């Protein structure tokens, strides 16, 4: 019960202090809207391109929604030393980091549904395998958040965290099969796709929306889950090493 009180307080505090601020809410809506519009117009194929673009736009919305705010909030709290207050509380580091990341995960998941809602007005979504889409969105939300956590822990300034985030995020747009199949990438960069977690989430989404996937769903889910665990444990290790002297 005590742990739940601490967890929920951190969650609610972060939600109110950071995620529900008007600039962030508008970022969460406008950003996926802009990406959806941009790719839809760029494709030049009319409404039939919506389903083709949807997995990529959903993933990009999650990726940017989760990593942007988390890197700022963690680095900011670390910088003004309010994060020390959390480290000094009698809650385990695992629970603390889960509480700090749960808002970002939720924010990313909500972001994912912005392009889906827009698409629902444009095309028929009844053919989509939602039983795959929903867990895939949740797992991509978790893995993107933990990637953001891993990056944030490595940075000491907000601008550093943003720079490191972009270093990962932008190449992922091209390397993870969001808008171009990874099989069309030059063979010498294709290995990079397989070491990036988002590739597996996008593969599930392409399969669930368009029926086109290059790996089995089971493998995609296992690899995504493994990435979640490894990134979280690595982040915890770095917090202990870097933030606890």
């Amino acid at each position, binding site marked *: 019960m005590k742990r739940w009180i601490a967890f929920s307080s951190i969650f609610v*505090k972060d939600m109110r202090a950071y995620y529900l601020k008007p600039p962030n809410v508008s970022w969460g809506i406008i950003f996926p809207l802009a990406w959806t519009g941009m790719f839809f117009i760029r494709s030049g194929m009319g409404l039939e391109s919506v389903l083709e673009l949807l997995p990529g736009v959903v993933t990009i919305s999650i990726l940017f929604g989760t990593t942007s705010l988390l890197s700022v909030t963690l680095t900011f709290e670390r910088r*003004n*030393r309010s994060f020390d207050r959390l480290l*000094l*509380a*009698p809650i385990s580091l695992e629970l603390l980091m889960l509480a700090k990341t749960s808002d970002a995960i939720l924010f990313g998941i909500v972001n994912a549904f912005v392009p889906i809602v827009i698409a629902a007005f444009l095309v028929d979504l009844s053919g989509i395998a939602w039983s795959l889409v929903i867990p895939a969105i949740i797992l991509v939300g978790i893995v993107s958040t933990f990637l953001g956590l891993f990056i944030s822990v490595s940075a000491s300034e907000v601008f550093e965290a943003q720079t490191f985030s972009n270093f990962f995020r932008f190449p992922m747009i091209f390397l993870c099969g969001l808008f171009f199949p990874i099989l069309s990438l030059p063979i010498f960069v294709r290995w990079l796709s397989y070491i990036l977690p988002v590739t597996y989430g996008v593969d599930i989404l392409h399969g669930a929306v368009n029926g086109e996937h290059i790996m089995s769903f089971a493998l995609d889910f296992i690899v995504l889950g493994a990435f979640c665990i490894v990134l979280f444990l690595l982040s915890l290790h770095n917090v202990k090493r870097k933030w606890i002297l």
Partner: protein
Amino acid sequence: MLTGLAGLDAGKISISGIDCTGNPKAVQHLTGIVPDESNLYPELTGFENLCFCAALYGIGKIERQKRARELLETFGLTDAANRKFAGYSKGMKRKLTFAAGIIHQPPILFLDEPTTGIDVASARQVRQIIAGLHRKGTTIFLTTHYIEEAERLCERIAFIVHGRIARTDRTADLLQPVQGKHVIIFSVSNSGDNLTGEMASAFPQYQFQSSVPNQIRIESGEPVNVGPLVRFLEERKIQVTEARRHVPSLEDVFVQVTGIEAGLMRREKEKAGGNQ
């Protein structure tokens, strides 16, 4: 190391009989920390900050709200309860940070420079609260640059120089060698090199020191007879412009133990940013 924000170099830590070497979480419910920086959340109000800090220790909603109101009252911050922490003055921030450190009523409290940089009235209030907590049985570790504060509030004192404990003892025992000493400080027109040596020969019952230019410190176990000393100096064409009594304090003990001279200590205090 005791709070859990730094790892151990060597040895072991046990708090209230709980071995917490390598596992500070085991005792963090027993400890409260008031850091030297006011590190609460700028976007939350004073009341919300206190409630949040209490929630970190698993205190339920009704109880934490009650404690937050009581502490706001104790620290004279009730009127500012619903204002954002970012808009608080420095003194108010220190007081709220102090309140946040004790909202879970810890039996052990670590205070790092609790009165640094705040106004005299607030500092006085904070000292009264520290004394009150101690009377109620809280064990308090106080880190301070203000040696008078340590002398006034602490039962045991450790002098730390360059990260190492130079001496630790009960305050009364530390003060014992300087208590009963009579110290007079002369301000003079010239305190040439051999003057204190000459004076020591003429007045062997006193000890003389001139570590500050144009000042002579006269120390004795008995009251100092000032007249002959002034005449001795005037015969050598040295004007005594002021003679004042200095009551020996813990600062003198600190200077004796650590070898750090008073001027440097004063500069350190100024650097720490106090106005007391």
